[in-house]
């Protein structure tokens, strides 16, 4: 029989432990990887927008087409027109970064307002907002975007407006759920009974204290969504057009060479998409596990 006995009085208080010791190692790894990706994206965006790249992404070098990765001067090789892949990948971030932030902002802003209305006021508001969210959820996002493109023009900001709006229901239902949870625990009621002004209850107690982490998580997941949409659309030929690079149109333009067995021009941006979306997903889920689920139990 094993001895499970432990010396009494030697147990550390949970509050004394640093946070990384309290949480699951797996979650920590997720978040760590996610933060690396976020940093890479942000740094690349800054590099690209201030033209700090050593090689111009538009520089055509017909003498050095389809160079494999590792070629001198071209770490990631070159594409079918001899343009530097690394530079194009870095500049490709421009295509989604700011529009993505716009989409996130729209989703969080309207989602929060509707969520608070539905959860805090309830009743008719709730019914109306539920109808609205169900309505938005009825459209496949990509089809709705195509409709908007056809009706207006293939502008990335229009697209991201739709992405943001179609993400509103997710945020709404999360905020609403959170408020209902707090209500169920009589927590909001206790505040009302104490005489705390409604504004303080909503802004400080509900949003700041209890929904903060949830919104951060939704922001990261929203970025993943924005990248997915932008790359899909530029792959389909909408949004950013050649020669301006975007990860989606890079995959598309490399497609013919892919079938000839020259994988790299198409694979490099595809991997960039893969690792970036993965990073945002893992960051979101890791944060979710750390901030939302475990501390409440």
């Amino acid at each position, binding site marked *: *029989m*094993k001895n*499970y006995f*432990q*010396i*009494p*009085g*030697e*147990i*550390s208080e*949970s509050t004394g*432990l640093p946070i990384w*010791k*309290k949480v699951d190692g797996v979650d920590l790894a997720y978040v760590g990887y996610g933060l690396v990706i976020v940093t890479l994206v942000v740094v690349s965006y800054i590099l690209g927008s201030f033209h700090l790249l050593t090689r111009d992404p538009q520089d055509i070098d017909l003498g050095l087409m389809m160079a494999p990765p590792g070629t001198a001067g071209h770490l990631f090789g070159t594409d079918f027109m001899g343009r530097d892949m690394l530079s194009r990948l870095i500049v490709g971030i421009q295509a989604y970064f700011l529009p993505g932030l716009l989409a996130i902002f729209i989703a969080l802003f309207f989602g929060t307002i509707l969520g608070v209305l539905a959860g805090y006021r309830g009743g008719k508001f709730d019914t109306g907002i539920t109808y609205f969210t169900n309505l938005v959820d009825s459209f496949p996002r990509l089809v709705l975007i195509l409709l908007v493109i056809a009706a207006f023009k293939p502008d990335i900001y229009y697209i991201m407006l739709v992405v943001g709006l179609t993400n509103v229901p997710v945020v709404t239902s999360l905020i609403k759920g959170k408020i209902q949870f707090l209500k169920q625990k009589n927590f909001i009621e206790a505040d009302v009974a104490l005489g705390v002004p409604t504004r303080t209850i909503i802004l400080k107690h509900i949003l700041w204290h209890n929904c903060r982490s949830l919104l951060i998580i939704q922001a990261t997941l929203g970025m993943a969504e924005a990248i997915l949409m932008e790359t899909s659309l530029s792959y389909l030929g909408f949004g950013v057009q050649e020669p301006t690079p975007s990860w989606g149109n890079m995959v598309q333009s490399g497609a013919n060479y892919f079938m000839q067995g020259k994988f790299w021009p198409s694979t490099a941006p595809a991997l960039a998409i893969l690792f970036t979306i993965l990073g945002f997903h893992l960051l979101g889920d890791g944060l979710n596990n750390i901030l939302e689920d475990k501390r409440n139990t």
Partner: protein
Amino acid sequence: MTAAPTLKIEDLRTYFYSRSKQAFIRSVDGVSLEIAQGETLGVVGESGSGKSITALSVLGLISAGPGVISGKIGFKSDRIQKNLLQDLDDFVKLTTKDGKIMAVSKDVVGWERNTDRVMNKLRGKEIAMIFQNPKSSLNPFTPVGKQITEAIKLHTSIKTEQQAKERALTWLDRVKIDSPRLRFDNYPYGLSGGMCQRAMIAMALACEPSLLIADELTTGLDATIQSKIVDLLVELKSQLGITTMLISHDISIISRLSDSVAVMYGGTVFEYGPTRDLLSTGFASKHPYTSGLLASIPSEQSIREKGYLQAIEGDVLDTINIPEGCRFYGRCNQVTEKIREKCARHEPDLREIGSGHKVRCWLYFD
């Protein structure tokens, strides 16, 4: 009494590992109990005293997470005799550093399969259990009657649905559910809490188990319903003479129903003896915790005088950080100077100080 007891628990320890604190929560920490055939043992204690965990350990229902169980649980009925704790250590791996446990890993599935093998033909058939929260303890997606016939078909010689239904109806009638035929097809949400608990009792007893474990079976029900359920149990007990382990935090229920009683605190048994002695106010040589507990309940006298209650100061013991010495030392108001040193340094054992009366307190040891 020479016959072997129906249930004999020896030095049961059920620990859960808390990763954030890198230590075991010692929910049950050295419990020894016996229930003779036909006897009702009441286990009383506050939350965190380990009484429910003890019961769940008996049925092998502790599996989730990194929990470990050691000790011996002997079960004996007319049909079967068995140690219910077998080879559980094989599924747990400890990583220690400087004598301190750093990590615990457990083969949960292997553990569960092992307990399922050991408990096969015991759960439901030999040992039945009734839980608190009757409404959530019944499957909300299945009619109540079906849940009873399922147990009957699993554990008795009755295998046809029709016969099982007849038997279930008899039992629903016996637990005094009105219009059992109607209730048979009801889903749990359509029944009140008291009725659900009656259905649970019917389900547990329909297979005629040798041992019944009732865990807080009246908690959460209204006072009037509680007393009806207790009435029912009294009646069934006199009819069936079933061996029962009755767990409750409500002393009045324990005192009404049980023959002997075990008072638990902080994962151990503090006192163990006949109900008549232990829970009557006149009986003097009690554990300070037991007398404190009795005093904290509003009594006729305290109500009449509108006086204060005699509360036990301090907080219920946190079983992750069990102190040296007596577990109750910090809250005890009967420590004398003579024994203070012993109380603070050494944990007393459970010793017999009268006929069938055991107590874990230095006050009564020389």
